[in-house]
């Protein structure tokens, strides 16, 4: 029996949602390049980004993280092991059949895509099978989403505010709900690697 560093990990998880805003780009690329190619779960990235620049961000992310990142089409099926990025100027939510649903609804927390929308819809669909991760950011988007993940029995992780370039976002989540792990990006990578070993 292997000694696990993160005792709450479990092989029931089916998806990972990562939210981030100002100061999260480095963390995201570190996480994506740190996890092995055979990481079994789909990873959905909801990152605040320029609303009117459609191209370039996904490409930069793919290059920096050595992992193919795709912006999904509306109603695209979510597949294991793939990394999806919420497109600029759209909210991304998850439908019950585990497909992506895009929307141009009003901004939430001054953001489109809004991390709350992605996390809340993912929590509804995946319930206790979801891992929610919230990184550095300058507003409170994502805090209520993390609460939704926790309320449905999912695993909640935030980047250690001490390490964040701007800690408003993870701090807001810590203030509204129980967070299972508060970790540096390096340890988030380690946690995901350990999670990988369970599959």
């Amino acid at each position, binding site marked *: 029996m292997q000694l696990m560093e993160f005792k709450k990990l479990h092989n029931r998880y089916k998806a990972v949602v990562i939210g981030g805003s100002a100061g999260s780009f480095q963390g995201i690329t570190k996480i994506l390049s740190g996890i092995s190619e055979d990481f079994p779960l789909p990873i959905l990235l909801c990152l605040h980004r320029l609303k009117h620049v459609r191209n370039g961000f996904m490409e930069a992310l793919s290059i920096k993280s050595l992992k193919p990142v795709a912006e999904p089409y509306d109603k695209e099926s979510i597949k294991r092991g793939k990394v999806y990025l919420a497109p600029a100027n759209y909210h991304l*939510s998850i439908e019950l059949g585990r497909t992506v649903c895009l929307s141009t609804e009003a901004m939430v927390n001054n953001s489109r895509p809004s991390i709350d929308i992605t996390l809340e819809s993912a929590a509804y669909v995946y319930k206790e099978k979801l891992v929610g991760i919230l990184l550095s950011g300058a507003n409170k988007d994502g805090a209520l989403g993390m609460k939704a993940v926790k309320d449905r029995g999912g695993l909640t992780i935030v980047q250690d505010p001490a390490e964040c370039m701007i800690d408003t976002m993870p701090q807001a989540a810590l203030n509204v709900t129980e967070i299972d792990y508060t970790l540096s990006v390096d340890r988030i990578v380690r946690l995901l690697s350990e999670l990988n070993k369970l599959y």
Partner: protein
Amino acid sequence: MQEIQIIDIRKLTETIRDLYGFDFTNYAMSSFKRRVHRVLELYRLGSVDQLIRKISENQEFFQEFISEITVNVTEMFRDPSFWRELRENVIPNILLNHNKISIWHAGCSSGEEVYSMSILLQEMGILDNARIVATDIDDVILKNAEAAVYSVKNMELNEKNYIRFRGTGNFHDYYEVKNGKAYMDKSLVKDVSFRNHDLVNGVVFSKFDLVLCRNVMIYFNQTLQNQVLISLHEGIFKYGYLAIGSKESLIWCDIANKFLVVNNEEKIHKKIKE
């Protein structure tokens, strides 16, 4: 407020269908549920059952409900590169064969797209050769589209898009600011026909050279997308064009093969088969 269950949504859509003839059954659940949740908050209703009661008893409220449930967030020249593509390739192509052009804005919302089109055609010097129909299921938003009064804050974004579109005029010439609001120059849409039409169970009423249905079908599930595409297909002349949102795809639809993708980046399709 208690959590909204799928069964509540079913009851709601059935009531609306039976009483008013609108069919929301095949709207995408995640966004539709979020819209319903918003309506409950807005009108301080404690449950979907209360909403159903209010809708059943009050026809005027139902009109408000329609306005709130449909998404009316849009901007002029959204995706400026799309509009450049229309100006530089699609519209000149249509005009190769005849000197008139017919355009349908399916799901025109508050009219920003209609004004973008009119400005584009005006700058091309062909606005008078265009027959434009703009439809939506929401009477109130159609009135707003015709009135064309926008917030000055939105006009800043619209202007930024217009500049990225590389319009050949001066954006400020197309509207006037009075009492803190922007009034569009209505002569731009004097020949546009704004009318109520429901894509879900509406009959195809005409044929067009170019149909714009951008970021409308994202609110539908795949079953309904499939069905709506069949109507849109009927509403387009052979070799006419269909434009959808930049993150929409037809590949899951049964009749996708009746269209050819002519610009994948801008999601412009050409109807190649009847």
